[in-house]
C-alpha cells in the first residue's frame, strides 16, 4: 500500500470519526449521512432580508429532522419529530452533552426541557409515540430569524 493510499484511508477514518462525533448543530449539514433520506430543501429569507436554507431528512426509524443553515454554511438551528427515541446525539452534535446534563439535573421538573442559555436554547415536548423539539444557537442565527420559524 502506497503512502497516498495510506493517507486516503486515514483521511477516510478521520472523516468517519468526525461525522460520528461532530454533527450537526453548530457544525456542518447532515447532507451526505447515508442513514438519512433527504425529504426536501428550501431557501428562506428572514424578515430582514438575510437568507438561510432548510434541509429536512427522515431516519429509517421515521424521525423527521430539519436543519437550518446560515450563509456561513453552519447549522444554527434544528428541529425534530419522532415516534420513539430520537437520535439527538446526531442532531445536537457537540451540544448533546449539554442537553444530557440539563435533563439530568436533580430538581428539574418531570417535564419537557427548556434550556435557555445565552448561546443555546433547547425546547422539547411530547408523549410516548410523539416527541418533538427544537434547538438553536442565538448567537449564530441570521438577524430577523425568530423561534416561530422552527415550530
Amino acid at each position, binding site marked *: 500500500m502506497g503512502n497516498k493510499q495510506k493517507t486516503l484511508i486515514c483521511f477516510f477514518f478521520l472523516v468517519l470519526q468526525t461525522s460520528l462525533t461532530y454533527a450537526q448543530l453548530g457544525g456542518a449539514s447532515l447532507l451526505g449521512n447515508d442513514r438519512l433520506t433527504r425529504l426536501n430543501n428550501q431557501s428562506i429569507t428572514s424578515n430582514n432580508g438575510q437568507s438561510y436554507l432548510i434541509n429536512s431528512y427522515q431516519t429509517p426509524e421515521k424521525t423527521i429532522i430539519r436543519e437550518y443553515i446560515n450563509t456561513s454554511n453552519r447549522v444554527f438551528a434544528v428541529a425534530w419529530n419522532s*415516534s420513539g427515541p430520537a437520535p439527538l446525539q446526531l442532531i445536537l452534535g457537540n451540544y448533546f452533552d449539554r442537553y444530557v446534563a440539563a435533563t439530568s439535573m436533580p430538581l428539574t421538573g418531570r417535564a419537557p426541557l427548556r434550556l435557555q442559555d445565552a448561546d443555546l436554547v433547547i425546547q422539547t415536548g411530547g408523549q410516548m409515540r410523539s416527541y418533538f423539539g427544537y434547538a438553536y444557537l442565538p448567537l449564530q442565527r441570521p438577524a430577523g430569524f425568530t423561534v416561530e420559524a422552527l415550530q
Partner: protein
Amino acid sequence: MKRNHWLFNLLTAFIFLLNACGGGGSSEPSAQRLSMKDIAVGFNEMGVIVEKWDGNPSYPNQPFTNVTVCIPNTSICETIEHVLIDTGSYGLRIFSSAISTSFSQIQVSGQPLAECSPFVSGYTWGTVNSVDLLMGQQIAPSVPIQIIDHNYATIPPGCSGSGSAIDEVSKLGANGILGVGAFAHDCGSLCTTSPNNSYYYTCADNPCVGSTASYSQQVINPIAKLPSHNNGLIVQLPSVNSLGAANLSGKMILGVNTANNNQISTESIFELNSFAEFFTVYKGARIRSYMDTGSNGIFFNDAITRCTGPSGFTGFYCPNTTMNLTATIRSYLGVSKTIDFSVAQPQSMSYPVQPSLAGISSSSFIWGLPFFYGRKVFIATEGMGVPNAPFIAF
C-alpha cells in the same frame, strides 16, 4: 509497522468513542421499600397517592399507585409500591432493583427481547418480560412489561444517543411507571413491521440488534388486557388548598361507561388526534396540547418571572405573588372549555402536593398533575370499543 500503528491508534480512538457514546448505567439500587399507606382498592378501582417518600427526593406532584405482578398462572406474586401513574405513556415499567421475582423474558424468533423506552426527560432500557398483573380485583394475564435494567447487555448507541439515562429509582422518583394513556401499545404499528423502530431490540448476541415486536409482544397499557373494565380509566383526585399539602389520596377507576362508578354524564368529550393531543388557546395563541399525570406542573409559554439560582427549579415560573390565569382547552371538533389555573413559586418537598406549580414550554401547552386536582378526568383508550375514542372527558 507504521501503518499498523496508525490504524491501531485510529481504531482505538474509534472504539473509545463508541464506548464513550455507549452510555451505560451506574445503577446503585436505591429503592427502599416503605410501607405505603393503605389505599382503597375496589373491583375496578386502584388507589392513588401523592406523598413524600425516600425514593423521590426531587419531584413534587407525582401520583403513585401499587401494582401486584405475578409469574403467569402461578400465585407467586410481588407488590411494588410507589409506581408513577403516567397518562403520557403506555405500559408498565419497573426497575429491576425494586423487584425480586424473576419473570420470563419475551422472545422474538427465539431471541430475547429488550426495549429502549422514550420519555421526554430521558430513556429507560431493559428487558421485556411477561407477568400477570393484578389491577383492582382483576388479573390482566400475560402482560408484556419492561424491567428497567441499564446493566442488561450493552445499551445500543441509538438508545444512549437519545438523551439521559433514567437508570435509578431516584432519577424517576418512583419504583416504576404505569403508563395508562389513551393508546394501548407503546410503539404501535411501526414496530410490528420494521426492525428499525428505535424501541425494540433482540439481544442474543452483543451488540443488540433492532427487532420488530408484534402487538402481542409490545409493552402495553395493561388496562387494555383486563377481562372487563378495559377500555380506559378515570383519574379522580381531590382539590387542594392553593398553598399545597403534604399528601393527598384519590383513585383510578378502570373502564369507561362499564359500571355505575365510571359513567360519563355531564362531562365534555375532547377527541384526541394520533399524537394524543388537542389544542389549548392561551392569550390568543392556539398551541398543541396534552394532559399528562406524569408531568408535574402546568407548562406553557408566558413572560412570567422565571426561577433562578441553586433551587434546582430551573424552567419553572417564580412570580412574587400567586397569579390566577385562564386558558381554553379545545378539541379538533371545536368542543371547548375554559380552565382557571394558578401559578406560584415552587416550594420544597415538604409540600409534595403543589397545585400552582408551573413552568416554561414554548412549543406545547402541557396540563400536568395540578390540572387533575379537584377533577374527575376520563381517558378512553383507542381501539377498545368506546365510540370516538381516543378521547379525554372532564
